[in-house]
């Protein structure tokens, strides 16, 4: 049955309409979880607020379990779901650059749009920076092309790389995430800040 669009059950334009509604839900959840506040987001790096860690991993686990179960029931063909190709070098290099941007700017692209939507001026400036960064990359692409295309690994699943089944990896990730949540709860008490 699913995914609906690649199976041509819904048309391209209907898919765009769904994109808009999914976006509304996405923005709503981000904002109401507190992702529109950069100091709340940055809290994870100093231990005073672990909302990012909790939301991020709970979301990844929920979606992952949902997909595995839907695949098990035959509702969703996982072969048709887009998996980002892995280019090892650029995944690490890009991640490092994004990490620097994260600790300096306090947002990531999705959350900055949320912050900008409710009037955070720092978020609007961050969005402006994003445009500059994307333009800068496109403009200097020739310099990075080699790096960008290096160490292509296809679209491997982490469970395949580790040689275990998807389900077992899911269970391990659940246990690891719950362990991190316990640490996060402890850190929030230890490094608590009254007002930020």
């Amino acid at each position, binding site marked *: 049955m699913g995914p609906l669009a690649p199976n041509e059950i819904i048309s391209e334009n209907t898919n765009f309409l769904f994109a808009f509604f999914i976006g509304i839900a996405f923005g709503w959840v981000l904002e109401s979880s507190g992702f529109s506040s950069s100091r709340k987001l940055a809290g994870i790096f100093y231990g005073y607020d672990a909302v990012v860690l909790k939301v991020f991993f709970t979301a990844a686990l929920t979606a992952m379990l949902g997909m595995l179960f839907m695949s098990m029931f035959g509702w969703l063909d996982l072969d048709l779901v*887009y998996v980002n190709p892995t280019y090892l070098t650029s995944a690490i290099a890009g991640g490092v650059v994004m990490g620097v941007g994260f600790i300096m700017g306090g947002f990531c692209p999705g959350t900055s749009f949320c912050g900008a939507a409710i009037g955070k001026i720092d978020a609007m400036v961050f969005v402006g920076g994003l445009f500059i960064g994307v333009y800068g990359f496109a403009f200097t692409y020739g310099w990075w092309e080699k790096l960008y295309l290096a160490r*292509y690994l296809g679209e491997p699943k982490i469970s395949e790389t580790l040689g275990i*089944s998807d389900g077992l990896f899911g269970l391990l990730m659940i246990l690891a995430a719950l362990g991190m949540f316990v640490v996060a709860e402890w850190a929030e008490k230890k490094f608590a800040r009254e007002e930020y």
Partner: protein
Amino acid sequence: MKQLKLLALIIIPLGIIIAAMPADKVKHSRLTPDELLQEAGAGVQFISPDVVADMLVRKDPSLKLIDVRTPEEFESFSLPGAINVPLSNLLSDEYSDQLNQDAYMNVFYSNGSVYANQAWMITRQLGYENNFVLEGGLNYWFGNILSPATPSQTSPDEEFARYDFRKSAAAALGGGGVVSTDAAAPAPKAVKPPVTAKAKKKPSGGC
């Protein structure tokens, strides 16, 4: 903390259920002769030279060209970036990692398409995936991609589009035996290859 306990209470049993499920995918199953005949008859293994030329021009890292001719023939001419796996050595262990993989798109080629097709048949029978055959082989490649014939005045537009694409691809690949001296040779202006692969339809994505 209360919510965390609730979350753990729900999510751990779900995780155990999913982990206990047998992995359903049995990969690399051998095909029955009937299935192989059906696939070969449908021609799913063929990939058009225009698609390959386009991937070469774009330096698509997922493309891997495999020359199944003899090493002597391979020495005298080969396509850019191709590796040599002579048909007679196809089953040696040395090559099995390259033929049985799922990161790259392997494209077999020979002078015509007979030998390349044999290579595909053998690997397909072994259950390997992601192997393809260059339609028409090198003969067609020379005659049509590297030195395309100018379409006649009355040809349909697609014919002209294809001609333009092939000409720019030939220039980019240093083709037709004509070494392009023009440094600013017409950079292939991302002309879409007129024939698309019969590859499985995948949703596009990317953040």
